């Protein structure tokens, strides 16, 4: 059965927002198609229509030449279409095999052993490693993703849609995923991959389709294009893809951590004897597999984590006169010390902002206590909010629209805008560009460089090694809560950092001051 899929003139609106319009797309068996576009360009929406989560408002979908209506993911499975979402749809307390057969309705009694055998056959064929009896909550992100793919193959998927599969993987894991994808392609499967990372597009795909603001812009064979051309198509104008890295001037000590250990409520060491110094006028990158202690590191500085006895966090003010120990201080006490600390946390709506409030109310989140009046000052946050919207080009229906309703990039701009407004001497960002499109990402890089130029110490926790290597002056690599090394961003390689992310001892000699 040939399973070529054609989407013709697809249209989808959410209220007044046109997510997709006049989109035409063809996917052939034995081919990897990259779907490229900025945030909010409608990639995920389009794929959700193919996998039965949304219904198109207009247009037609043909599978193998026959028009179909896909009303549910079950219909999609029946057509051989399966999607792996950014957020995995797995049940944590079940095993791999149980997750695979979940919802399959193969009779009341299921022979899990037979399932295991079939799973093994699929794994051998494509080069996966899945342990059928392992529980999902014991799996790493990469294992979970593998399980999702195997789950689809088990159900007979011929067309696989992967929504930003590499966002959560290390470089090594990404290579493994790509190898498997190539095997599947050889086997005649059609694969659609959504990604922001252009070098991956160049690496893995046969064809590239580009969406911009919901419209279909064009389609090119990968071998006839390059990252610059693709970016221009995505953004609609020429964009420079180089990230600036000005030489640091007047480095001065800003924050110095010594022997800091943090233990969570379960007694697990999240940070283990961490010591480093961040300097004003430079960007210190922090790399590591997700969950290696990045979050705790930043939250400890911000006064949100309890430090074990013996740790010191010394903060030196910009004039170099004062030195304060931040250990044991609450966020309010830290602020009262005069520490100008800006913090862009990873969880934007769950920590950095209040989703149900508008921009002005969010602007005063960290400063609402100022002044002696029992009432909040409404004027200043309103002015600041308007300024952020204007300067960072935040797209919002109105100043008071709940920020939860804004797109991811605009949410981040609001958050970054607020944090930078306090002219910080120490700026900490966690995954500042996660999920953001190229344009917004470059805006963020520019803002970080501006802070560096002002003499602020910038700590940048990132996951994209290419960006870390281009942007940061030094890179601190965390592995399981310990520092496995601090390397010079100008003289290191992706491979070296990748290795340090997984091995503690590998780069002992790389540790500098």
């Amino acid at each position, binding site marked *: 059965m040939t399973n070529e899929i054609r989407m013709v003139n697809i249209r989808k609106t959410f209220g007044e927002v046109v997510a997709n319009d006049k989109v035409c797309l063809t996917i052939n068996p034995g081919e990897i198609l990259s779907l490229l576009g900025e945030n909010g360009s409608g990639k995920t929406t389009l794929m959700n229509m193919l996998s039965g989560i949304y219904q198109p408002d207009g247009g037609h979908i043909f599978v193998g030449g026959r028009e179909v*209506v896909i009303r549910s993911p079950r219909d999609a*499975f029946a057509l051989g279409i399966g999607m792996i979402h950014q957020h995995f749809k797995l049940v944590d307390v079940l095993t791999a095999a149980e997750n695979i057969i979940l919802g399959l309705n193969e009779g009341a009694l299921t022979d899990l052993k037979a399932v295991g055998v079939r799973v093994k056959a699929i794994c051998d064929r494509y080069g996966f490693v899945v342990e059928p009896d392992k529980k999902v909550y014991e799996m790493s992100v990469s294992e979970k993703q593998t399980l999702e793919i195997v789950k689809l193959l088990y159900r*007979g998927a011929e067309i696989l849609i992967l929504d930003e599969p590499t966002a959560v993987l290390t470089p090594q894991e990404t290579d493994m995923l790509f190898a498997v994808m190539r095997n599947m392609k050889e086997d005649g499967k059609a694969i659609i991959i959504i990604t922001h990372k252009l070098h991956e597009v160049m690496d893995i795909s046969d064809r590239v389709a580009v969406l911009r603001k919901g419209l279909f812009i064009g389609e090119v064979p990968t071998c006839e294009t390059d990252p610059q051309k693709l970016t221009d198509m995505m953004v609609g104008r020429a964009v420079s893809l180089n990230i600036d890295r000005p030489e640091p001037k007047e480095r001065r000590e800003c924050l110095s951590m010594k022997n800091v250990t943090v233990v969570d409520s379960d007694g697990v060491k999240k940070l283990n004897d961490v010591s480093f110094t961040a300097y004003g006028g430079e960007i210190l990158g922090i790399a590591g597999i997700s969950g290696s202690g990045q979050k705790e590191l930043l939250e400890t500085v911000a006064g949100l984590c309890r430090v074990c006895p013996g740790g010191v966090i010394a903060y030196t003010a910009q004039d170099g006169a004062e030195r304060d120990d931040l250990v044991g201080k609450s966020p309010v006490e830290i602020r009262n010390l005069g520490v100008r600390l800006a913090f862009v946390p990873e969880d934007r*709506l769950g920590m950095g902002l209040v989703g149900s409030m508008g921009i002005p*109310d969010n602007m*005063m989140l960290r400063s609402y206590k100022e002044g002696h009046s029992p009432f909040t000052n409404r004027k200043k946050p309103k002015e600041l909010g308007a300024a952020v919207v204007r300067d960072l080009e935040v797209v919002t229906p109105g100043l008071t629209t709940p920020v939860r309703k804004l797109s991811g990039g605009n949410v981040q701009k609001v958050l970054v805008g607020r944090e930078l407004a306090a002219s910080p001497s120490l700026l900490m960002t966690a995954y500042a560009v996660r999920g953001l499109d190229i344009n917004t990402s470059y805006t963020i890089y520019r803002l970080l460089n501006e802070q560096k130029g002002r003499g602020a110490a910038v700590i940048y926790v990132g996951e994209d090694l290419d960006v870390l290597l281009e942007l940061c002056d030094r890179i601190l690599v965390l592995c399981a809560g310990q520092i496995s090394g601090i390397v010079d961003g100008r003289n290191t390689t992706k491979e070296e950092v990748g290795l340090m992310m997984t091995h503690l001892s590998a780069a002992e000699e790389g540790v500098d001051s």
Partner: protein
Amino acid sequence: MKQKLKEHKEPFVRIAKRVKIEWWKAWGIRGIALVGALLVCAAIIYAVVALNPLQVYKAMFEGAFGTNKRLWVTIRDMMMLLCIGVGLAPAFKMRFWNIGAEGQILAGAIASAACMIYLGTLPGILLLLVMFLCSAVAGGLWGLFPGVFKAKWNTNETLFTLMMNYIALQLVAFFVALWENPRGSNKVGIINPNTRAGWFPPLFGQDYALNVILVLALAAIMFLYLKYSKQGYEIAVVGESENTARYAGIRVPSVVIRTMTISGAVCGIAGFLVVSGASHTISISSAGGRGFTAIIVAWLAKFNTFVMILIAGLLVFLEKGAIEIASRFDLNNFVSQMIMGILLFFIIGCEFFIQYELKFRDKKHKEAQA
């Protein structure tokens, strides 16, 4: 698996979230819902008891507003419900599930009654002030306990506040036995019937004018507190996400304790209104389930204390009207509960159509062609 493939037609109707809705449309939908509810009620009334629905509605109206006295009793009860709703608003805005208003009201009522009995000789205004303060403190304590336990040990506030209701109920039973008058009646009876000490004095010739003034003042203060004060801002942030609150440097435990104390105190003041401003006695039915009804008031109004006036008015009107039709047409109380249920179903249910819209199949094709 391919064999299982079924041909589908497009679904006849789909649900889509609205981005925004004009205010007149939203109120139009609510109006239609109200009319729809009245029609359904009418049909059921006619089908079950063969009465003229119009007469039944007329009786309801007369039951609530028919005479001057009825009008003022309706207003009094509406203020009562509003007061409790105002008390619950800060707790619910903080996403603290305070279902213990009953207990907080009773705690306030006990404090008021005790003041009337033991301090009946104090001059009028002073006695009222002392009663006001004592009932607020008693209700506040009843809110403070679950607040402290939530803040310190993260206990489940729903169970905790519910259990506090039963403790308050037993305390009332104890004090009723203690203050029994006349002996053996198992009732407290009207307190200070001759001196009227601790009773709300009539204002402008109206017995319940003070209730109205007091509750409306509380509603206005609470509105300003929640919307414009720093503490109100903290409540909103904590309600949205504790992580965000911690990040913002808000001490979550102290906000929880403070807010629950305020919530309990206002509910305690409602207990003061019951004893001093309405019944002039205390019994285990002094709260009478209003602590639960007020939860509906608070949520339907989305914690806006002025919208609560409307909702409280509607609920009390329904209650009074239902009692009237039950007695006038010799029906039992279930009829009133049915009517109330149907009306609430429509009024709450219509919010769905304000949040979402239905898209029909035909319309879609027209859109696609356009």
